[in-house]
């Protein structure tokens, strides 16, 4: 038996229901008094700056913003923001944030996690948060290494990676976080880069506006244990050939002159890179982030190198509207209260089968 659920509230902004303010806010308002203690040169600084600079743009009351993190270098993030925050335990932030977001519609809930936290010890919570589509934004800092435990390979490290725990090379096939999220029914999946502040900010803006779970993978350099992991997509000499920028509604091309493009094999559905010329210009793939079917987004995600990163698509792979778990859970409470009236405790305790001793 299944029940027809109340009509889903779609086309609702991710920030709907959260108190806003007209007060002018600046990044300083969101900066706590705690000293930031990441290693010099860590990509986390850039992301922190970008987030502190971006949060005022949301126009939300600061007291209605909560950052929840797990364990790892990036998970120290909440301490540095003057919002509410919880630095929880390894891998569990999406679960904790699910309870918080479901019970509090008036909060903007953010999860800060890393590749080890989200994809290894907390993999289960991540995929279930994505399929439930709880209204929150997950920032997945992917540096492809374990930093806080001093340099073991992570679930996104390339095969053969030599680390302290893999002196003869890692034997693990890595996760592609975008492919994983798409497979977990995520309604918003994006990727950006720590050093590209403009792109990072634009992706965060769209993620915050999305109602449902938004997963944002942020490529983030660890200068101590995995330095240079993203050089190919950051180096001015190579990045134009390495970064595939996705923009909804536009043909996907890249390269200094837009000389590379993506085409899709109609038989297999796979997407590949071609050199653009007059014979294939019309066949170039036009990015459709809003397609209900995630196949295309998945095919594009597969262009990410699994080994050393020489090429990666960035931008919003997928953004579709789907009912959120928390909105629906609250709607069920409201529907029950409306149908039965507010709970009458005496009536509940008494039940229907009673007897009286006079």
């Amino acid at each position: 038996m299944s029940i027809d659920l109340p009509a889903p509230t779609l086309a609702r902004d991710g920030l709907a229901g959260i108190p806003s303010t007209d007060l002018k806010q600046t990044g300083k308002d969101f900066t706590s008094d705690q000293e930031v203690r990441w290693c010099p040169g860590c990509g986390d600084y850039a992301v922190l700056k970008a987030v502190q600079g971006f949060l005022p743009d949301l126009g939300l009351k600061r007291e209605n913003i909560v950052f929840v993190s797990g364990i790892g270098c990036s998970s120290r993030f909440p301490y540095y923001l003057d919002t509410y925050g919880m630095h929880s335990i390894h891998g569990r932030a999406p679960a904790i944030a699910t309870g918080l977001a479901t019970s509090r519609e008036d909060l903007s809930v953010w999860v800060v996690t890393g590749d080890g936290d989200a994809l290894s010890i907390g993999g289960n919570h991540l995929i279930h948060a994505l399929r439930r589509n709880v209204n929150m934004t997950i920032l997945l800092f992917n540096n492809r290494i374990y930093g806080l435990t001093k340099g073991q390979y992570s679930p996104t490290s390339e095969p053969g990676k030599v680390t302290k725990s893999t002196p003869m090379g890692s034997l693990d096939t890595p996760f592609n976080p975008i492919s994983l999220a798409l497979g977990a029914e995520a309604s918003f999946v994006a990727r950006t880069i720590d050093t590209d502040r403009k792109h990072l900010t634009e992706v965060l803006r769209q993620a915050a506006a999305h109602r449902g779970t938004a997963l944002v993978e942020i490529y983030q350099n660890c200068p101590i244990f995995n330095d240079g992991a993203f050089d190919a997509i950051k180096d001015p000499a190579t990045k134009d050939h390495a970064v595939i920028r996705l923009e909804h509604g536009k043909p996907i091309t890249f390269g200094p002159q837009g000389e590379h493009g993506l085409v899709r094999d109609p038989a297999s559905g796979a997407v590949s890179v071609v050199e653009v010329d007059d014979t294939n210009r019309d066949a170039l793939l036009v990015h459709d982030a809003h397609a209900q079917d995630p196949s295309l987004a998945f095919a594009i995600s597969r262009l990410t190198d699994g080994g050393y990163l020489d090429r990666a698509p960035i931008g919003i792979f997928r953004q579709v509207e789907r009912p959120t778990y928390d909105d629906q859970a609250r709607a069920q409470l409201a529907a029950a209260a409306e149908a039965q009236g507010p709970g009458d405790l005496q009536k509940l305790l008494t039940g229907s089968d009673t007897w009286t001793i006079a």
Partner: protein
Amino acid sequence: MAIDGKKVEQLDRVVIRFAGDSGDGMQLTGDRFTQETAAFGNDLSTLPNFPAEIRAPQGTLPGVSSFQVHFADHDILTPGDRPDVLVAMNPAALAANIEALRPGGIVIVDSYDFTSRNLAKAGYTSSPLEDDSLADYQVHPVDLTGMTVEAVAEFGLGRKDAARAKNMFALGLLSWMYGRPTEGTTAYLEKKFASKPAIRDANLAAFKAGWNFGETTEAFAVSYEIKPAPMSQGQYRNITGNTALSYGIVAAGQQSGLPVFLGAYPITPASDILHELSKHKAFGVTTFQAEDEIAGIGAALGASFGGALGVTTTSGPGISLKSETIGLAVMIELPLVIVDVQRGGPSTGLPTKTEQSDLLQAMFGRNGEAPLPVIAPQSPADCFDAALEAARIAVTYRTPVMLLSDGYLANGSEPWQIPDVATLPRIEPDFATAPAEGETFLPYARDPETLARAWAPPGVAGLEHRIGGIEKADGTGNISYDPANHDRMVRHRAAKVDRVAESIPDLVVDDPSGDARVLVLGWGSTYGPIGAGVRAARAQGIDVAHTHLRHLNPFPRNLGEVLRAYDRVIVPEMNLGQLALLLRAQYLVDVQSYDKVTGMPFGSEELAEVVAQAVKTLDTPSLDRPRQENHR
């Protein structure tokens, strides 16, 4: 009162056990008999007992499911040690339960099922109905299946569906034998099968046919009367532990004004709490079936951070998985009610059987110094009050609280005098308020009386703060690795839990003569068997005192004094002496453990004998304690 000239015998109490295949509907049969018995006004206590397998192979010993009900014209405490009446729906049910029956007891068997094939499945080489192996009992072979099929012939059901109503035939027969009212069961069947008229009519017809068979057959010459029990004035209902516990959680939400958020993963024998609470959305109760045990408690803790009453329910294996998050809750000092409906362990253990072996896990099963309050209900109905008390402590002291129920309490039932909600205690969340101009909010500043820290859910300007699992600086709650601060914070957390003792009543000892030298002390679900055992011992003229702990951490303030007032303290537990270990460690008192882990509650006669032995050997310098030596 005689029915159709048949003899009616008066009894003061009866224990009936219904036993059959897992698919025979024995739990339903027992439950209906219980409801009618409750409506009749007897005091009662029940013990369902079923296998972990949903449908073990039909007709086999592992597939036997049973339901025991004890009812009386006086106040009783347990479902009874040994049945007086056994209803066995097949040879396996007979084989699995006959040993428990009292000599001279009544056996009613469905003779239809006593085929050579079924007898062999149950391990019989010859039919016990034909040899003299049941000579000690009053045996009534009745073709329950055959008569049921005949009684429902007019409704056009297939033979299999028709035969399935045999449990209602048995219920009808037993209802006649013990003069139970029938209106409730009739109404129940009409409602349950409203959409399946043929099944409804067949069950009703089988139920009536069973009653009529009792009334007319010469095989049953006697029926019995057990008068209603005198109970204090008020309105009553029958209730199981899991239902009472669920209602306690709903009530805690109402009495505190907090929305309830349950995060849970299905697990036997706790799942019924999730099922029950999911029905009460109109009370603002959110139930979240999580992807795993860890997410269940994580979501509950997240909701607590947001200002809800976070609750998670599980059994022992689930507590193992939740341990790290419980430690986080200890560190961030937020209210959280953790319900452990204990079952046989370790590992998967005995999922459907009862045990009290998670006490030390509740006390110590976390890394670091991570104390938390632990409380336990003592009877099915008491689960209501215990849940309210757990929530009171959690909210008042900003701490996770462990509530230790068990499988016996969860599924067992008893009459409950329905409380007047106006008399229930209020629970004050006492949230932090915005600091005055120029003042800074200190999330780890403590209330001088309770030592509880401020609870400041998001949404209030000026209270923005960060909490987490890294050691907190006293007052500010910022990260601190300072050695002296860590030492101080560890002690603060312990002192806060100890402080709970100031809000709990002194332990009261039941010592009618005031001269007893032996004290029996229990905790949790052993209350009934210990109470009944003590009564039985006193009936033999033995002077013994009895007391029972609800609060396991911290203990009531007068516990040490109570223990030292007796020459001998016996602690019966369904584990290998976990409370005894705590008592010895804390009070340096030579308490003596009496323990057993069979997955079944203690018998009251067994405990009466333990008491008798303890009293008899009081002046023997060296006490014989073979049980201890055997398993240590």
